[in-house]
């Protein structure tokens, strides 16, 4: 028998909880600087460095920067710096696992807000077929490879090719919509520019603005549009097995009703169809836990921290939430 507390938690509406956590995290990461808060420079989430009032910084920026180091310096103090950076990132990451995306990421939150705007307008959301998802899913790995290789080619020469110039320094940041959009939240529009000072800068800033435009329109139509391409999400996936927060599935209890798949903002098919793997986290997963909410089978889907159950699917909770939904929230 479950404890009363666990039952009460399982009956909760985690989406509502997530909504408030997202607001809190957004404020913390975007405005934290006003309170002199800095929770770290190796965060596994898009706390944008270009936001002067941020309350923490995204690890990808540091990673890209470190990659400009010449190979020979890898074994010096620089190498230790890089390792400590990665280790810090890793420690941050495993605490929340991919819930960094679903609960903390300011850019993800922004997209969720765009989605609710769309919902207010009564416009339907876009759905992609499994094949489309598969195709789009590889983009984030390509971006991840590029954001490591391009900076490497600044400090090092590959195959005797000339080194790249420093304008290639943080290639992903240049096209990341976090750079352009997050500073806007305290009135800083300075990233909305096309930089004509060099060709590289011009191309990168133009790409950045194009991606920004695409994100605004895309996230309006498709839930969590950018997350499908997010290299941070790909980077997370390398470490996800070490995550302390886990999303597990008991395949024997699954009826394959597909409710979880319906609820999934990033359209993960495996959540409904995979009956063999216990650890069900996929690279696109953001651990928003909406799948658990939508699952009417007792203990089929489960989020646990350090093997302690945090949130479990239950019939009682399911019907409670559905009734809530059916009576206008």
């Amino acid at each position: 028998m479950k404890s009363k507390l666990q039952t009460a938690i399982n009956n909760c509406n985690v989406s509502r909880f997530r909504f408030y956590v997202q607001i809190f995290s957004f404020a913390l990461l975007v405005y934290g600087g006003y309170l002199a808060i800095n929770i770290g420079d190796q965060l596994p989430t898009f706390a944008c460095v270009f936001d002067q009032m941020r309350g923490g910084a995204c690890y990808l920026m540091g990673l890209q920067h470190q990659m400009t180091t010449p190979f020979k310096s890898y074994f010096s103090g620089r190498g230790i710096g890089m390792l400590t950076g990665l280790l810090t990132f890793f420690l941050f990451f495993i605490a929340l696992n991919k819930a960094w995306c679903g609960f903390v990421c300011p850019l993800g939150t922004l997209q969720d807000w765009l989605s609710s705007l769309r919902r207010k307008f009564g416009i339907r959301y876009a759905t992609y077929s499994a094949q489309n998802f598969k195709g789009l899913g590889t983009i984030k790995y390509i971006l991840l490879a590029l954001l490591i290789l391009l900076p490497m080619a600044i400090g090092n020469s590959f195959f005797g090719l000339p080194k790249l110039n420093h304008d290639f320094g943080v290639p992903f940041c240049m096209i990341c919509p976090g750079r352009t959009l997050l500073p806007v939240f305290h009135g800083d529009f300075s990233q909305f520019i096309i930089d004509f000072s060099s060709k590289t800068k011009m191309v990168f800033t133009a790409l950045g603005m194009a991606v920004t435009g695409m994100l605004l329109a895309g996230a309006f139509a498709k839930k969590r549009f950018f997350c499908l391409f997010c290299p941070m999400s790909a980077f997370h996936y390398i470490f996800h097995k070490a995550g302390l927060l886990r999303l597990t599935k008991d395949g024997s209890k699954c009826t394959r009703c597909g409710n979880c798949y319906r609820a999934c903002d990033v359209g993960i098919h495996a959540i409904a169809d995979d009956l063999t793997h216990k650890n069900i986290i996929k690279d696109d997963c953001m651990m928003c836990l909406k799948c658990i909410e939508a699952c009417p089978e007792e203990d089929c889907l489960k989020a646990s921290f350090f093997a302690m159950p945090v949130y479990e699917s239950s019939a009682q909770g399911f019907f409670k939430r559905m009734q809530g939904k059916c009576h206008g929230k």
Partner: protein
Amino acid sequence: MENERLRRVRKTTLLHLAMEAKNTLLKIEEEFPDNPAAMDYFYTLYKDVFNDEPKLPTDKKIIGTMCVQVPQELIHAVGAFPLRLCNGASAYDQVGAEFMPAKSCPVVRATMGMLHVDQALWGESLQAVVIPTTCDQKKKSCQILADMGYPVYALDMPATKESEASRFYWQESIKKFTLDMQKITGVKITAKRVQAAIAKVASASSLYRKLQELRKSDYALILGKDMFLVTNAYFFDEIDRWQQSVSRLVAELEERKRNGFSAGKRQAPRILFTGSPPIFPNLKVPILVEQAGGVIVADETCSSGRLLYDSVAFDEATLNDMIPALADRSLKPCTCPCLTPNKDRLRKLINMAKEFEADGVVYQAFSGCLPYEMEQKQVAKALAEAEVPMLYVETDYSPEDMGQLSTRIEAFIESILARRRKKKVAQLHQKAGEEGS
């Protein structure tokens, strides 16, 4: 002339039906002690419905359905009354046999017989008969019914549910059905109405799930024969009234649980019932099982478990999200044997056997119901691997095989008890061995 004959056939059929229903109810009510007080509503309900003067169950417009794949929510949303037509009466079966092939399934035969005999009953109120294209017999009955003059609506269903294409195909089918429901009834389907209908059906299934949870208790709180009546009543009862009565039943069973009450013998073998749907008054096999000392603790049939268990989940309260969600509910988790492959049914049975701690499975197949007959081997194999004994019973609506069935069922129950004793002895030996060493 023809009309006169039909009138006569109808009269004898209805007498026959009333008797059949009375006999079954008598068995259910009188032959078992300690029926829950909340069951009285259902006993009375069946007495009112199954007599020699059938009435329409409602004043509303009626949409007749067959199979579990028709989304009732859409029928509620247009303010109509969903009436499940699948029939279990031997009386109607005999009528159906007159114009249906001898080897066809008794469910289809009885349903067709009922529709044939009672055609005058419906009048204007039956707006459509919605038949999903599930098994071949249901499919072909579309044409026969259309020839009789019924407003048949064939709900186009894929033969498999695995591929994404079939899922979308079915979603489009249901979307089209939504538009057609509007046309047929002249009522506009709005998001608000669908939402309310989903809520209504969801609270019914949440009640059903509560009953299921209670059936998992160590001692059976309610017998299977009563459960079949409860779920079967959902076919034709007003949903609000049904819910009120089931709530009372749930409360009573909870009370029984607190008191440590057992509906059957405490050591009674726990049986999981599956296969062709037992529909009142044909509850022959379930009653025989419980007369033989078993207790049906769970069932996996489309007349009961599959009807109310699966639930709709939608993300956004718009028609574009809710209607596909309705479609998904009736296809994705469906374990109807007309689908292929149907591995989900095997998994479901094994999981149910585990969750309900079933000691054995009784698999009923109506002769003529090919999908269930053909799936028997796979189920038997899967259950054997899971070490759950299974009894396969091929039967129909006629009471003729009762004697033979009761012998086989009694032997099965006895074999479960023997198995249990053997296990216990082995355990004792082992324990003694451990203590000795």
